Protein backbone atom coordinates (compact mmCIF):
# COMPACT_ATOMS: atom_id res chain seq x y z
CA UNK A 1 0.00 0.00 0.00
CA UNK A 2 1.14 3.48 -0.73
CA UNK A 3 0.39 6.40 1.55
CA UNK A 4 0.90 10.08 0.86
CA UNK A 5 0.58 12.59 3.65
CA UNK A 6 0.19 16.26 2.83
CA UNK A 7 2.43 16.21 -0.19
CA UNK A 8 3.56 19.40 -1.85
CA UNK A 9 5.77 19.71 -4.89
CA UNK A 10 6.86 23.22 -5.69
CA UNK A 11 9.19 24.04 -8.58
CA UNK A 12 11.51 27.04 -8.70
CA UNK A 13 10.94 27.82 -5.09
CA UNK A 14 11.67 31.40 -4.12
CA UNK A 15 11.90 32.54 -7.73
CA UNK A 16 9.44 34.67 -9.66
CA UNK A 17 8.30 31.63 -11.63
CA UNK A 18 7.52 29.61 -8.56
CA UNK A 19 4.92 27.00 -9.34
CA UNK A 20 3.11 24.44 -7.19
CA UNK A 21 2.59 21.32 -9.27
CA UNK A 22 1.11 19.32 -6.44
CA UNK A 23 -0.52 20.73 -3.33
CA UNK A 24 -1.93 19.28 -0.14
CA UNK A 25 -2.23 15.76 -1.49
CA UNK A 26 -3.14 13.17 1.09
CA UNK A 27 -3.86 9.74 -0.30
CA UNK A 28 -3.99 6.05 0.43
CA UNK A 29 -3.67 3.76 -2.54
CA UNK A 30 -4.68 0.16 -2.19
CA UNK A 31 -2.57 -2.64 -3.59
CA UNK A 32 -3.71 -4.95 -6.36
CA UNK A 33 -6.08 -2.32 -7.65
CA UNK A 34 -6.14 -0.11 -10.71
CA UNK A 35 -6.20 3.57 -9.84
CA UNK A 36 -6.54 6.27 -12.49
CA UNK A 37 -5.50 9.87 -11.99
CA UNK A 38 -7.68 11.99 -14.19
CA UNK A 39 -7.43 15.67 -14.96
CA UNK A 40 -6.56 18.25 -17.60
CA UNK A 41 -2.97 18.82 -18.59
CA UNK A 42 -1.14 20.85 -16.00
CA UNK A 43 -3.18 19.31 -13.23
CA UNK A 44 -0.16 17.65 -11.73
CA UNK A 45 -0.87 14.02 -12.72
CA UNK A 46 2.61 13.39 -14.05
CA UNK A 47 4.29 15.06 -11.09
CA UNK A 48 2.20 13.07 -8.66
CA UNK A 49 3.08 9.83 -10.39
CA UNK A 50 6.75 10.70 -10.31
CA UNK A 51 6.50 11.40 -6.59
CA UNK A 52 4.73 8.15 -5.89
CA UNK A 53 7.21 6.29 -8.05
CA UNK A 54 10.16 7.63 -6.07
CA UNK A 55 11.45 9.54 -9.03
CA UNK A 56 11.34 12.87 -7.29
CA UNK A 57 11.20 14.06 -3.74
CA UNK A 58 8.30 16.11 -2.44
CA UNK A 59 9.01 19.65 -1.33
CA UNK A 60 7.18 18.81 1.85
CA UNK A 61 5.05 15.99 3.16
CA UNK A 62 5.71 12.29 3.67
CA UNK A 63 5.40 9.20 1.55
CA UNK A 64 5.12 5.64 2.86
CA UNK A 65 5.58 2.40 0.99
CA UNK A 66 4.01 -0.55 2.83
CA UNK A 67 4.38 1.37 6.06
CA UNK A 68 7.99 2.32 5.48
CA UNK A 69 8.76 6.00 5.04
CA UNK A 70 10.79 6.70 1.97
CA UNK A 71 10.65 10.46 1.80
CA UNK A 72 14.10 11.14 3.15
CA UNK A 73 15.99 8.04 2.08
CA UNK A 74 19.34 8.68 0.38
CA UNK A 75 19.42 8.35 -3.39
CA UNK A 76 21.04 4.93 -3.40
CA UNK A 77 18.37 3.26 -1.34
CA UNK A 78 15.58 5.14 -3.02
CA UNK A 79 16.80 4.10 -6.45
CA UNK A 80 17.08 0.48 -5.43
CA UNK A 81 13.59 0.48 -3.99
CA UNK A 82 12.24 2.15 -7.06
CA UNK A 83 13.99 -0.27 -9.37
CA UNK A 84 12.61 -3.27 -7.58
CA UNK A 85 9.16 -1.98 -6.73
CA UNK A 86 8.05 0.07 -9.70
CA UNK A 87 7.80 -0.44 -13.40
CA UNK A 88 7.26 2.61 -15.58
CA UNK A 89 5.56 3.04 -18.90
CA UNK A 90 6.16 6.53 -20.21
CA UNK A 91 4.04 8.61 -22.47
CA UNK A 92 6.91 8.91 -24.96
CA UNK A 93 7.91 5.28 -24.42
CA UNK A 94 11.53 6.43 -24.02
CA UNK A 95 13.21 3.41 -25.48
CA UNK A 96 16.91 3.65 -26.27
CA UNK A 97 17.72 3.83 -29.94
CA UNK A 98 20.40 1.81 -31.64
CA UNK A 99 20.20 -1.15 -29.33
CA UNK A 100 18.03 -4.23 -29.51
CA UNK A 101 14.60 -4.89 -28.05
CA UNK A 102 16.11 -7.48 -25.75
CA UNK A 103 18.70 -5.12 -24.41
CA UNK A 104 16.17 -2.35 -23.89
CA UNK A 105 14.08 -4.72 -21.83
CA UNK A 106 17.02 -5.87 -19.74
CA UNK A 107 18.42 -2.43 -18.98
CA UNK A 108 16.56 -1.76 -15.73
CA UNK A 109 17.99 -4.97 -14.30
CA UNK A 110 21.65 -4.26 -15.04
CA UNK A 111 22.44 -2.36 -11.85
CA UNK A 112 20.96 -5.14 -9.73
CA UNK A 113 24.05 -7.24 -10.10
CA UNK A 114 22.07 -10.29 -11.08
CA UNK A 115 23.55 -12.90 -13.27
CA UNK A 116 23.10 -11.97 -16.90
CA UNK A 117 21.62 -15.30 -17.89
CA UNK A 118 18.92 -15.05 -15.24
CA UNK A 119 17.89 -11.62 -16.45
CA UNK A 120 17.98 -12.76 -20.04
CA UNK A 121 15.70 -15.68 -19.31
CA UNK A 122 13.17 -13.44 -17.68
CA UNK A 123 13.34 -11.09 -20.62
CA UNK A 124 12.85 -13.90 -23.11
CA UNK A 125 9.81 -15.09 -21.20
CA UNK A 126 8.33 -11.61 -21.26
CA UNK A 127 8.97 -11.42 -24.98
CA UNK A 128 7.09 -14.65 -25.39
CA UNK A 129 4.12 -13.49 -23.36
CA UNK A 130 3.98 -10.25 -25.29
CA UNK A 131 4.49 -12.01 -28.62
CA UNK A 132 7.68 -10.16 -29.38
CA UNK A 133 10.08 -13.10 -29.64
CA UNK A 134 10.86 -12.70 -33.35
CA UNK A 135 11.83 -9.11 -32.68
CA UNK A 136 14.20 -9.87 -29.82
CA UNK A 137 17.30 -8.83 -31.74
CA UNK A 138 15.77 -6.04 -33.75
CA UNK A 139 16.76 -2.46 -33.21
CA UNK A 140 14.06 -0.24 -31.75
CA UNK A 141 13.91 1.91 -34.87
CA UNK A 142 12.48 -0.98 -36.87
CA UNK A 143 9.47 -1.64 -34.67
CA UNK A 144 5.89 -0.77 -35.34
CA UNK A 145 4.01 1.40 -32.89
CA UNK A 146 2.41 -1.59 -31.22
CA UNK A 147 5.65 -3.50 -30.97
CA UNK A 148 7.37 -0.53 -29.40
CA UNK A 149 4.53 -0.24 -26.95
CA UNK A 150 4.87 -3.85 -25.95
CA UNK A 151 8.62 -3.47 -25.59
CA UNK A 152 8.02 -0.62 -23.16
CA UNK A 153 5.63 -2.83 -21.24
CA UNK A 154 8.13 -5.67 -21.11
CA UNK A 155 10.79 -3.31 -19.85
CA UNK A 156 8.48 -2.17 -17.07
CA UNK A 157 8.08 -5.80 -15.99
CA UNK A 158 11.66 -7.00 -16.04
CA UNK A 159 12.24 -6.59 -12.32
CA UNK A 160 8.89 -8.10 -11.48
CA UNK A 161 7.66 -4.97 -9.77
CA UNK A 162 4.68 -4.79 -7.44
CA UNK A 163 3.50 -1.52 -8.96
CA UNK A 164 3.10 -0.44 -12.55
CA UNK A 165 2.96 3.27 -13.27
CA UNK A 166 1.77 4.38 -16.68
CA UNK A 167 1.77 8.03 -17.70
CA UNK A 168 -0.77 8.73 -20.45
CA UNK A 169 -0.12 5.34 -22.03
CA UNK A 170 -2.67 5.71 -24.81
CA UNK A 171 -1.78 9.29 -25.76
CA UNK A 172 -0.11 8.29 -29.04
CA UNK A 173 -2.06 5.16 -29.80
CA UNK A 174 -4.96 4.44 -32.10
CA UNK A 175 -8.07 2.79 -30.76
CA UNK A 176 -6.98 -0.73 -31.53
CA UNK A 177 -3.66 -0.37 -29.76
CA UNK A 178 -5.33 1.48 -26.91
CA UNK A 179 -7.66 -1.46 -26.39
CA UNK A 180 -4.66 -3.79 -26.46
CA UNK A 181 -3.01 -1.72 -23.81
CA UNK A 182 -6.01 -1.73 -21.56
CA UNK A 183 -6.03 -5.49 -21.92
CA UNK A 184 -2.40 -5.56 -20.83
CA UNK A 185 -3.23 -3.43 -17.82
CA UNK A 186 -6.00 -5.86 -16.97
CA UNK A 187 -3.47 -8.62 -16.98
CA UNK A 188 -1.31 -6.69 -14.54
CA UNK A 189 -4.23 -6.55 -12.21
CA UNK A 190 -4.70 -10.28 -12.62
CA UNK A 191 -1.09 -10.72 -11.61
CA UNK A 192 -1.94 -8.87 -8.43
CA UNK A 193 0.02 -5.79 -9.27
CA UNK A 194 -0.95 -2.30 -8.24
CA UNK A 195 -1.60 -0.21 -11.33
CA UNK A 196 -1.44 3.57 -11.33
CA UNK A 197 -2.38 5.39 -14.49
CA UNK A 198 -2.48 9.03 -15.41
CA UNK A 199 -4.87 9.53 -18.28
CA UNK A 200 -7.44 11.81 -19.78
CA UNK A 201 -8.48 9.16 -22.25
CA UNK A 202 -12.04 7.90 -21.58
CA UNK A 203 -11.07 4.57 -23.06
CA UNK A 204 -8.89 4.18 -20.02
CA UNK A 205 -10.71 5.80 -17.15
CA UNK A 206 -14.10 4.47 -18.13
CA UNK A 207 -12.76 0.95 -18.53
CA UNK A 208 -14.30 -1.65 -16.24
CA UNK A 209 -10.93 -2.68 -14.88
CA UNK A 210 -10.56 0.64 -13.11
CA UNK A 211 -11.18 0.41 -9.39
CA UNK A 212 -10.85 4.05 -8.50
CA UNK A 213 -10.58 7.39 -10.24
CA UNK A 214 -8.91 10.35 -8.57
CA UNK A 215 -9.62 13.75 -10.06
CA UNK A 216 -6.88 16.31 -10.06
CA UNK A 217 -7.07 20.00 -10.82
CA UNK A 218 -4.28 22.53 -10.32
CA UNK A 219 -2.32 20.05 -8.30
CA UNK A 220 -5.09 19.34 -5.84
CA UNK A 221 -7.41 16.43 -5.46
CA UNK A 222 -10.96 17.32 -6.26
CA UNK A 223 -13.96 15.84 -4.61
CA UNK A 224 -14.21 13.80 -1.46
CA UNK A 225 -11.23 11.71 -0.46
CA UNK A 226 -11.89 7.99 -1.03
Amino acid at each position, binding site marked *: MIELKNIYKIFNQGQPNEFAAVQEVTLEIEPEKVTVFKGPSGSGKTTLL*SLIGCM*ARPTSGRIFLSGREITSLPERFLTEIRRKTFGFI*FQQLNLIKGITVLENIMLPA*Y*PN*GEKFSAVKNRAMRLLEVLELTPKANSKIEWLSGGEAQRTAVARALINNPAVIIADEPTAHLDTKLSMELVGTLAKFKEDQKMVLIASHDPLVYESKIVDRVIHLRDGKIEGPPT
Partner: protein
Amino acid sequence: MEGWERQKNILDFSLSSLLRRKGKNLALVFVYTLLVFTLASVLFFTHAIKREASLILQDSPELIVQKSIAGRQEQIPLRYLEPIQKIRGVQSGRGRLWGYYYDPIIGANYTLMVPEKQTLESGKISIGQGISKTRLVFPGDTMEFRSHDGMLLQLQIQQVFPSESELIASDLILLAEDDFRRLFGGSREYATDLTLRVRNQRELPTIALKIAEMFPDTRIILREEILRTYESIFNWRGGMMVFILVGALLAFIIFAWDKASGLSLEERREIGILKAVGWETSDVLLLKFWEGTIISLSSFLMGIIWAYAHVFFTSAALLAPALKGWAVLYPEFKLTPFIDFSQVATLFFLTVVPYTVATIIPSWRAATIDPDSVMRT
Protein backbone atom coordinates in the same frame (compact mmCIF):
# COMPACT_ATOMS: atom_id res chain seq x y z
CA MET B 1 29.71 -11.46 -6.66
CA GLU B 2 27.06 -8.86 -7.12
CA GLY B 3 29.46 -6.04 -7.76
CA TRP B 4 31.25 -8.01 -10.41
CA GLU B 5 28.01 -8.89 -12.22
CA ARG B 6 26.99 -5.26 -12.17
CA GLN B 7 30.30 -4.29 -13.74
CA LYS B 8 29.90 -6.85 -16.47
CA ASN B 9 26.34 -5.77 -17.18
CA ILE B 10 27.22 -2.14 -17.45
CA LEU B 11 30.28 -2.98 -19.52
CA ASP B 12 28.00 -4.89 -21.84
CA PHE B 13 25.84 -1.86 -22.37
CA SER B 14 28.88 0.35 -22.91
CA LEU B 15 29.96 -1.96 -25.69
CA SER B 16 26.48 -1.90 -27.22
CA SER B 17 26.49 1.84 -26.95
CA LEU B 18 29.85 2.15 -28.70
CA LEU B 19 28.88 -0.35 -31.35
CA ARG B 20 25.99 1.85 -32.36
CA ARG B 21 28.55 4.07 -34.03
CA LYS B 22 30.75 1.24 -35.13
CA GLY B 23 32.54 3.08 -37.93
CA LYS B 24 33.31 6.18 -35.96
CA ASN B 25 34.54 4.33 -32.93
CA LEU B 26 36.66 1.89 -34.90
CA ALA B 27 38.26 4.82 -36.67
CA LEU B 28 38.88 6.42 -33.31
CA VAL B 29 40.54 3.30 -31.96
CA PHE B 30 42.63 3.05 -35.10
CA VAL B 31 43.92 6.58 -34.92
CA TYR B 32 44.45 6.37 -31.19
CA THR B 33 46.38 3.13 -31.56
CA LEU B 34 48.50 4.69 -34.28
CA LEU B 35 49.32 7.56 -31.98
CA VAL B 36 50.36 5.26 -29.15
CA PHE B 37 52.28 3.15 -31.63
CA THR B 38 54.25 6.10 -32.94
CA LEU B 39 55.02 7.48 -29.54
CA ALA B 40 55.90 4.12 -28.05
CA SER B 41 58.08 3.22 -31.04
CA VAL B 42 60.08 6.38 -30.65
CA LEU B 43 60.38 5.87 -26.91
CA PHE B 44 61.42 2.22 -27.17
CA PHE B 45 63.88 2.97 -29.92
CA THR B 46 65.61 5.89 -28.29
CA HIS B 47 65.77 4.23 -24.92
CA ALA B 48 67.26 1.04 -26.32
CA ILE B 49 69.94 2.99 -28.14
CA LYS B 50 70.73 5.06 -25.10
CA ARG B 51 71.05 2.01 -22.91
CA GLU B 52 73.25 0.26 -25.38
CA ALA B 53 75.45 3.33 -25.68
CA SER B 54 75.77 3.64 -21.93
CA LEU B 55 76.83 0.02 -21.69
CA ILE B 56 79.23 -0.39 -24.55
CA LEU B 57 80.86 3.03 -24.51
CA GLN B 58 81.94 2.54 -20.94
CA ASP B 59 85.38 1.55 -22.16
CA SER B 60 85.85 4.35 -24.63
CA PRO B 61 89.08 6.29 -24.24
CA GLU B 62 89.28 8.17 -20.96
CA LEU B 63 90.80 11.24 -22.43
CA ILE B 64 91.13 12.44 -26.00
CA VAL B 65 93.28 15.35 -27.03
CA GLN B 66 92.47 17.19 -30.23
CA LYS B 67 94.29 20.07 -31.79
CA SER B 68 92.59 22.87 -33.62
CA ILE B 69 93.81 25.83 -35.57
CA ALA B 70 91.52 28.64 -36.68
CA GLY B 71 88.45 26.68 -35.71
CA ARG B 72 89.43 23.62 -37.68
CA GLN B 73 90.55 20.34 -36.23
CA GLU B 74 94.13 19.69 -37.30
CA GLN B 75 96.58 16.84 -37.05
CA ILE B 76 98.20 16.77 -33.64
CA PRO B 77 102.00 16.57 -33.40
CA LEU B 78 103.14 13.35 -31.79
CA ARG B 79 105.78 15.25 -29.90
CA TYR B 80 102.99 16.45 -27.64
CA LEU B 81 102.72 12.91 -26.40
CA GLU B 82 105.87 12.71 -24.33
CA PRO B 83 105.27 15.70 -22.05
CA ILE B 84 101.66 14.67 -21.66
CA GLN B 85 102.57 11.15 -20.70
CA LYS B 86 104.78 12.58 -18.00
CA ILE B 87 101.82 14.20 -16.28
CA ARG B 88 101.12 12.48 -13.02
CA GLY B 89 98.28 10.00 -13.35
CA VAL B 90 98.61 9.34 -17.06
CA GLN B 91 99.08 5.64 -17.53
CA SER B 92 99.66 5.50 -21.26
CA GLY B 93 98.96 7.39 -24.42
CA ARG B 94 99.07 6.98 -28.13
CA GLY B 95 98.44 8.81 -31.30
CA ARG B 96 95.21 7.70 -32.91
CA LEU B 97 94.88 7.61 -36.66
CA TRP B 98 91.44 7.85 -38.15
CA GLY B 99 89.50 9.75 -40.75
CA TYR B 100 86.73 9.68 -43.31
CA TYR B 101 86.73 8.46 -46.84
CA TYR B 102 84.01 9.36 -49.30
CA ASP B 103 83.21 6.58 -51.72
CA PRO B 104 81.79 8.08 -54.90
CA ILE B 105 80.58 4.74 -56.22
CA ILE B 106 77.73 4.58 -53.75
CA GLY B 107 77.99 8.00 -52.23
CA ALA B 108 78.79 6.78 -48.76
CA ASN B 109 81.14 7.94 -46.07
CA TYR B 110 83.39 5.42 -44.41
CA THR B 111 85.26 5.79 -41.15
CA LEU B 112 88.81 4.58 -41.50
CA MET B 113 90.90 3.64 -38.48
CA VAL B 114 94.29 2.20 -37.67
CA PRO B 115 93.88 -0.14 -34.71
CA GLU B 116 96.40 -0.36 -31.92
CA LYS B 117 95.97 -4.01 -31.20
CA GLN B 118 95.49 -6.67 -33.83
CA THR B 119 97.17 -4.56 -36.47
CA LEU B 120 96.57 -5.50 -40.03
CA GLU B 121 99.00 -6.50 -42.68
CA SER B 122 99.69 -3.96 -45.29
CA GLY B 123 97.17 -4.34 -48.11
CA LYS B 124 94.50 -5.91 -45.96
CA ILE B 125 91.41 -4.38 -44.43
CA SER B 126 88.59 -5.36 -42.12
CA ILE B 127 85.27 -3.76 -42.94
CA GLY B 128 81.91 -3.24 -41.31
CA GLN B 129 78.81 -5.18 -42.25
CA GLY B 130 77.16 -2.04 -43.60
CA ILE B 131 79.89 -1.56 -46.16
CA SER B 132 79.74 -5.19 -47.16
CA LYS B 133 75.99 -5.01 -47.66
CA THR B 134 75.96 -1.72 -49.51
CA ARG B 135 78.96 -2.28 -51.76
CA LEU B 136 78.32 -6.01 -51.99
CA VAL B 137 81.88 -6.85 -51.16
CA PHE B 138 82.99 -9.88 -49.16
CA PRO B 139 86.14 -11.40 -47.66
CA GLY B 140 88.59 -11.97 -50.45
CA ASP B 141 87.27 -9.12 -52.60
CA THR B 142 89.34 -6.03 -53.25
CA MET B 143 88.25 -2.47 -52.78
CA GLU B 144 89.80 0.46 -54.57
CA PHE B 145 90.56 3.72 -52.89
CA ARG B 146 91.75 6.95 -54.42
CA SER B 147 94.58 8.40 -52.40
CA HIS B 148 95.30 12.02 -51.63
CA ASP B 149 97.81 12.17 -54.47
CA GLY B 150 95.48 10.71 -57.06
CA MET B 151 96.83 7.17 -56.96
CA LEU B 152 94.66 4.10 -56.79
CA LEU B 153 95.09 1.93 -53.74
CA GLN B 154 93.86 -1.65 -53.79
CA LEU B 155 93.07 -3.24 -50.44
CA GLN B 156 91.84 -6.73 -49.86
CA ILE B 157 89.08 -7.56 -47.44
CA GLN B 158 90.27 -9.96 -44.84
CA GLN B 159 87.33 -9.85 -42.50
CA VAL B 160 83.84 -8.43 -42.28
CA PHE B 161 82.60 -7.51 -38.82
CA PRO B 162 79.53 -9.44 -37.74
CA SER B 163 76.13 -7.82 -38.11
CA GLU B 164 75.71 -7.71 -34.33
CA SER B 165 78.42 -5.07 -34.30
CA GLU B 166 76.68 -2.82 -36.79
CA LEU B 167 75.75 -0.27 -34.21
CA ILE B 168 79.39 0.62 -33.71
CA ALA B 169 81.19 -0.66 -36.76
CA SER B 170 78.80 -0.55 -39.67
CA ASP B 171 80.86 1.95 -41.64
CA LEU B 172 84.24 1.07 -40.20
CA ILE B 173 87.34 0.12 -42.17
CA LEU B 174 90.42 -0.99 -40.26
CA LEU B 175 93.71 -0.80 -42.09
CA ALA B 176 97.45 -0.80 -41.56
CA GLU B 177 99.24 2.42 -40.73
CA ASP B 178 101.23 2.33 -43.95
CA ASP B 179 98.08 2.14 -45.98
CA PHE B 180 96.49 4.92 -43.96
CA ARG B 181 99.44 7.17 -44.69
CA ARG B 182 99.50 6.15 -48.31
CA LEU B 183 95.85 7.01 -48.60
CA PHE B 184 95.74 10.24 -46.70
CA GLY B 185 99.29 11.46 -46.81
CA GLY B 186 100.52 13.43 -43.86
CA SER B 187 103.65 13.05 -41.86
CA ARG B 188 104.47 10.20 -39.52
CA GLU B 189 105.09 12.78 -36.91
CA TYR B 190 101.46 13.64 -36.68
CA ALA B 191 98.33 11.79 -35.67
CA THR B 192 94.63 12.58 -35.87
CA ASP B 193 94.36 12.89 -32.11
CA LEU B 194 95.80 11.50 -28.91
CA THR B 195 94.13 9.04 -26.59
CA LEU B 196 95.19 8.62 -23.00
CA ARG B 197 94.56 6.00 -20.35
CA VAL B 198 94.47 7.34 -16.84
CA ARG B 199 95.06 5.46 -13.60
CA ASN B 200 92.70 7.33 -11.36
CA GLN B 201 89.41 8.66 -12.70
CA ARG B 202 89.29 11.46 -10.18
CA GLU B 203 92.45 12.96 -11.52
CA LEU B 204 90.96 13.46 -14.96
CA PRO B 205 89.93 17.10 -14.53
CA THR B 206 93.35 18.00 -13.17
CA ILE B 207 95.12 16.24 -15.98
CA ALA B 208 92.85 17.93 -18.51
CA LEU B 209 93.70 21.29 -17.01
CA LYS B 210 97.41 20.60 -17.17
CA ILE B 211 97.24 19.59 -20.78
CA ALA B 212 95.30 22.73 -21.63
CA GLU B 213 97.97 24.75 -19.91
CA MET B 214 100.77 22.95 -21.67
CA PHE B 215 99.18 23.12 -25.08
CA PRO B 216 96.59 25.87 -25.37
CA ASP B 217 95.77 24.93 -28.92
CA THR B 218 94.28 21.63 -27.81
CA ARG B 219 90.82 20.55 -26.90
CA ILE B 220 90.09 17.78 -24.40
CA ILE B 221 87.24 15.31 -24.53
CA LEU B 222 86.59 13.21 -21.47
CA ARG B 223 84.93 9.83 -21.35
CA GLU B 224 82.19 11.13 -19.13
CA GLU B 225 81.35 13.69 -21.79
CA ILE B 226 81.09 10.89 -24.30
CA LEU B 227 78.73 8.98 -22.06
CA ARG B 228 76.69 12.05 -21.25
CA THR B 229 76.30 12.88 -24.90
CA TYR B 230 74.57 9.60 -25.48
CA GLU B 231 72.51 9.94 -22.36
CA SER B 232 70.86 12.99 -23.76
CA ILE B 233 70.75 11.95 -27.37
CA PHE B 234 67.26 12.07 -28.86
CA ASN B 235 66.17 14.17 -25.93
CA TRP B 236 62.83 15.86 -26.14
CA ARG B 237 64.49 19.17 -26.67
CA GLY B 238 66.09 17.98 -29.88
CA GLY B 239 64.57 19.12 -33.14
CA MET B 240 62.40 16.41 -34.59
CA MET B 241 61.57 14.91 -31.23
CA VAL B 242 59.80 18.07 -30.19
CA PHE B 243 57.52 17.84 -33.19
CA ILE B 244 56.65 14.25 -32.52
CA LEU B 245 55.93 14.83 -28.87
CA VAL B 246 54.06 18.06 -29.34
CA GLY B 247 52.13 16.54 -32.20
CA ALA B 248 51.12 13.57 -30.11
CA LEU B 249 50.14 15.75 -27.21
CA LEU B 250 48.02 17.88 -29.51
CA ALA B 251 46.25 14.83 -30.85
CA PHE B 252 45.44 13.59 -27.38
CA ILE B 253 44.14 16.97 -26.41
CA ILE B 254 41.91 17.04 -29.46
CA PHE B 255 40.45 13.65 -28.59
CA ALA B 256 39.86 14.63 -25.02
CA TRP B 257 38.39 17.94 -26.10
CA ASP B 258 35.93 16.24 -28.35
CA LYS B 259 34.80 14.17 -25.44
CA ALA B 260 34.88 16.91 -22.85
CA SER B 261 32.96 19.41 -24.91
CA GLY B 262 29.80 18.06 -23.47
CA LEU B 263 27.05 15.71 -24.28
CA SER B 264 24.65 15.94 -27.15
CA LEU B 265 20.96 16.27 -26.52
CA GLU B 266 20.50 12.65 -27.47
CA GLU B 267 23.12 11.50 -24.96
CA ARG B 268 21.49 13.59 -22.26
CA ARG B 269 18.13 12.13 -23.05
CA GLU B 270 19.49 8.62 -22.84
CA ILE B 271 21.00 9.24 -19.47
CA GLY B 272 17.63 10.57 -18.38
CA ILE B 273 16.00 7.34 -19.55
CA LEU B 274 18.53 5.22 -17.73
CA LYS B 275 17.92 7.13 -14.55
CA ALA B 276 14.20 6.86 -15.04
CA VAL B 277 14.32 3.08 -15.32
CA GLY B 278 16.37 2.76 -12.18
CA TRP B 279 20.02 3.51 -12.82
CA GLU B 280 21.80 5.45 -10.14
CA THR B 281 24.21 8.28 -10.77
CA SER B 282 27.08 5.92 -10.03
CA ASP B 283 25.78 3.43 -12.59
CA VAL B 284 25.72 6.12 -15.25
CA LEU B 285 29.21 7.28 -14.39
CA LEU B 286 30.42 3.70 -14.52
CA LEU B 287 28.92 3.45 -17.98
CA LYS B 288 30.82 6.52 -19.13
CA PHE B 289 33.97 5.25 -17.49
CA TRP B 290 33.77 2.03 -19.46
CA GLU B 291 32.99 3.88 -22.67
CA GLY B 292 36.19 5.83 -22.30
CA THR B 293 38.30 3.00 -21.00
CA ILE B 294 37.26 0.54 -23.68
CA ILE B 295 38.64 2.84 -26.35
CA SER B 296 41.73 4.11 -24.59
CA LEU B 297 42.78 0.85 -22.99
CA SER B 298 42.39 -1.12 -26.20
CA SER B 299 44.34 1.47 -28.13
CA PHE B 300 47.07 1.63 -25.54
CA LEU B 301 47.59 -2.12 -25.39
CA MET B 302 47.58 -2.59 -29.12
CA GLY B 303 49.81 0.41 -29.70
CA ILE B 304 52.39 -0.81 -27.20
CA ILE B 305 52.42 -4.32 -28.56
CA TRP B 306 52.83 -3.24 -32.14
CA ALA B 307 55.48 -0.72 -31.15
CA TYR B 308 57.51 -3.40 -29.42
CA ALA B 309 57.19 -5.72 -32.39
CA HIS B 310 58.07 -2.86 -34.71
CA VAL B 311 61.19 -1.75 -32.89
CA PHE B 312 62.57 -5.08 -31.75
CA PHE B 313 61.36 -7.56 -34.34
CA THR B 314 61.61 -5.44 -37.47
CA SER B 315 64.53 -3.30 -36.31
CA ALA B 316 62.38 -0.19 -36.33
CA ALA B 317 61.68 -0.52 -40.04
CA LEU B 318 59.36 2.48 -40.11
CA LEU B 319 61.58 4.81 -38.15
CA ALA B 320 64.69 3.99 -40.14
CA PRO B 321 63.86 6.16 -43.16
CA ALA B 322 63.40 9.16 -40.89
CA LEU B 323 66.74 8.54 -39.29
CA LYS B 324 68.60 7.79 -42.44
CA GLY B 325 68.59 11.30 -43.71
CA TRP B 326 70.92 11.49 -46.68
CA ALA B 327 73.09 8.69 -45.49
CA VAL B 328 73.60 5.84 -47.88
CA LEU B 329 75.11 3.66 -45.23
CA TYR B 330 73.32 3.07 -42.00
CA PRO B 331 73.28 0.29 -39.48
CA GLU B 332 70.48 -2.19 -39.12
CA PHE B 333 69.03 -1.38 -35.77
CA LYS B 334 69.02 -4.82 -34.23
CA LEU B 335 68.48 -3.49 -30.79
CA THR B 336 68.47 -5.28 -27.49
CA PRO B 337 65.01 -4.80 -25.98
CA PHE B 338 65.89 -2.65 -23.01
CA ILE B 339 62.63 -1.19 -21.79
CA ASP B 340 62.17 1.74 -19.50
CA PHE B 341 59.04 0.85 -17.56
CA SER B 342 58.57 4.32 -16.25
CA GLN B 343 58.18 5.44 -19.84
CA VAL B 344 55.53 2.80 -20.41
CA ALA B 345 53.76 3.84 -17.23
CA THR B 346 53.88 7.48 -18.25
CA LEU B 347 52.52 6.61 -21.64
CA PHE B 348 49.72 4.69 -19.95
CA PHE B 349 48.81 7.65 -17.79
CA LEU B 350 49.02 9.97 -20.73
CA THR B 351 46.84 7.91 -23.00
CA VAL B 352 44.35 6.10 -20.83
CA VAL B 353 43.63 8.39 -17.93
CA PRO B 354 42.95 11.74 -19.60
CA TYR B 355 40.68 10.23 -22.22
CA THR B 356 38.68 8.30 -19.67
CA VAL B 357 38.45 11.32 -17.43
CA ALA B 358 37.40 13.44 -20.40
CA THR B 359 34.59 10.98 -21.02
CA ILE B 360 33.35 10.98 -17.45
CA ILE B 361 33.59 14.64 -16.46
CA PRO B 362 31.12 16.15 -18.92
CA SER B 363 28.69 13.38 -18.06
CA TRP B 364 28.81 14.28 -14.40
CA ARG B 365 26.10 16.88 -14.54
CA ALA B 366 23.91 14.82 -16.78
CA ALA B 367 24.38 11.81 -14.57
CA THR B 368 22.99 13.67 -11.60
CA ILE B 369 19.82 14.50 -13.50
CA ASP B 370 16.65 13.86 -11.60
CA PRO B 371 15.04 10.62 -12.68
CA ASP B 372 11.77 12.34 -13.38
CA SER B 373 13.30 14.59 -16.02
CA VAL B 374 12.14 12.35 -18.86
CA MET B 375 8.64 12.60 -17.59
CA ARG B 376 8.67 16.33 -17.39
CA THR B 377 9.70 16.95 -21.00
